[in-house]
Each structure stands twice: as structure tokens, then as C-alpha cells.
């Protein structure tokens, strides 16, 4: 059992849950990646405003993925991508969303874990 755990640790270095992340990314809800990005294996109404996420887990490291989800404008100030983890510096946010991020830190970690499986 200890040996098994030791073997698994390097694989599970990222804390997020990939299955939960897949649900968030592909469910078609308001904060779903597929509204704008194609995702291999995802069905339903897929948008094409952003690039396909095929292979994104091979191109970017976990921290890089997370930075883009939390606030893509820090990488590209002109981005259309909403800042899923930022609550500051926003203009006229509706009262019910004020001070709340689009996704919680845990949800973002889950999405990152899922994106890392897209290789």
C-alpha cells in the first residue's frame, strides 16, 4: 500500500480532480470552456471563439494553465477570455456576483487537472 502511494504521488502532484474538471469544462453551463473552445470528446454546443484545447496539456504546464484561467488578461491584455479567478479591478459587476470569482480556486484546480489529460 505504501509502495502504491509512493508510486502515485508524482502522478497526482496536481491537487485538482480531473473528472470534476471535465464536468465543469464540458457541461455547457455559463462558465464552461466549451462555450468558446473545442474539447476532444466533448459533445453538444461547442463554440469557436477561442482555440481548440486539443493537446493543451502537452503544450502548457499546470501553473501556466492555471494562470490563463485565473486571469488570461495578464498574458494577453486584449484577450476575450473572462478572468475566472479574479475579483478585483472589474467594472460594474452585478451585485450578486460582486467579490465572487466565476470559478472557485478548487474548481480552477479541477479544470487544470482535466486540461492536463488533454495530450
Amino acid at each position, binding site marked *: 500500500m505504501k509502495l502504491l502511494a509512493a508510486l502515485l504521488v508524482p502522478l497526482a502532484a496536481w491537487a485538482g480532480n480531473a473528472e470534476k474538471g471535465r464536468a465543469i469544462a464540458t457541461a*455547457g453551463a455559463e462558465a464552461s470552456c*466549451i*462555450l*468558446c473552445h473545442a474539447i476532444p470528446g466533448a459533445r453538444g*454546443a*461547442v*463554440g*469557436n*471563439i477561442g482555440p481548440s484545447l486539443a493537446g493543451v496539456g502537452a503544450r502548457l504546464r499546470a501553473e501556466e494553465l492555471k494562470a490563463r484561467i485565473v486571469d488570461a*488578461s495578464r498574458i494577453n491584455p486584449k484577450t*476575450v477570455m*473572462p*478572468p475566472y479567478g*479574479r475579483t478585483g479591478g*472589474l*467594472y*460594474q*459587476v*452585478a*451585485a450578486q*456576483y460582486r467579490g*465572487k470569482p*466565476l470559478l472557485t480556486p478548487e474548481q480552477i484546480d479541477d479544470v487544470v487537472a482535466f486540461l492536463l489529460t488533454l495530450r
Partner: protein
Amino acid sequence: MKGLVVALLAISGSAFAQRSGLEYASPEIRRLQASEAENPGMLWVDEGEKLFAAQCASCHASMKGVAARYPRIVAGKIVTLETQVRHRVPFAYESEPLLALTAYIASQSRGLPIGQQLSERDVAKGKTEYFRRRGQMNLACTNCHDANAGKRLGADTVSEGQPNGYPTYRLRWQTLGSLERRLRACFSGVHAEMPAYGDPLLIELEAYLAWRGRGLPIEAPAVRP
């Protein structure tokens, strides 16, 4: 070729070739809009014609071409077709009689170009708002409707956000609605503070959109998904 492009720009009177939302709609929706008998917005036009005859016709003979000249600037203030109608007959925003009257009046300008009465200076405030990111999604109108027109957001095709079809029958609404209602839907979508009907922010945006889309023909009542 260059000469042709210059000539086309001169005709449309603007820097980019605008596309009405109709061009992004399905063949079925285009057919609905074009059919007098099947366009559901014609129900409001018919109702509006009766209302007009009862309440307005003693002073106004014809509304031909009137809607194309709105929004307009009167004594330094933007007046939309709705604010002008409400000034005379104070129906509530988005009420059936107001939608009927504006649909009827707008239909009397079908085919006429919008925005010819406005200058860029007239719409400066609206332009600023159009380019201002807002809401939890941190999106400005331009982020979708200039940069990504024609692309898909989920199941929807993003259009240029042109105002020439309003009031419009949207299948999603299952009813006719005003441009202000459509603008409010975008405010909701980006999780921004919701301006009330008649809010200067909406009126300024309407004026900017008319100037931005200047030259497009009025299609009201349009049909959209």
C-alpha cells in the same frame, strides 16, 4: 479592385462593411422575416396600426421614413423612437402597446438606411461605453461583436450586434422585444449591473449602434433566433 472598394465604402458611408444580423440567421429565419403572412412581428405591426389610428393619426398623417431618423439629437439630448413615443403616449417600456406602436412606426421605414442623422461626436459617450469592459466576465461589447462576429458562442452565432431590426421577434423570447431588452440581455450575460429601461447608458449605446451601423436598412420587425 481598389476603386471598387473605395466606391463601396463611399456608398455605405462607413469604414467597415456592416452585416445585418439577418446575414447570420438560418434560411428558415430569413424566410420567416421576409414573409408578411408568417413574420410573427407583423401581429404587433397590425396592432400598432390600430393604436396609431386611434391615438396619433389626428396629428400625424404618415410615419414613412420617421423611424430611420431615430435616435436623433434634440437640444443636445439623444431621443430614441421609444422615448419620443413615450413622451406623447406614456406606455411602459416593453409593454405591448409601446412595442406595437414602435413596431408599426419602424415598419414604415423598412428598407431605409439608419444612422444618417448622427455624427461620431453625437455618439461619443455611447462609443466609450461600447468599448468599456464590464461585469464579472470583464467583457466589452466590442470583444464579441467586432472581434468575434461570425464565430460561435456555444450554440449561438455571434453577430455584429446591429440595431436595424428592432423591435425584433426573437424565437428565444417567443415575443417581440426592443433593442433595450436585447442590450440588457448582454448586460446579464456578462454579469454586469443592469441598467433600467430608459437609462442614459442604454440610450447612449443605442445611438452609438445606429451610427456604427449607419447605412444598414431598417428590417423591423426582424426575426432572430
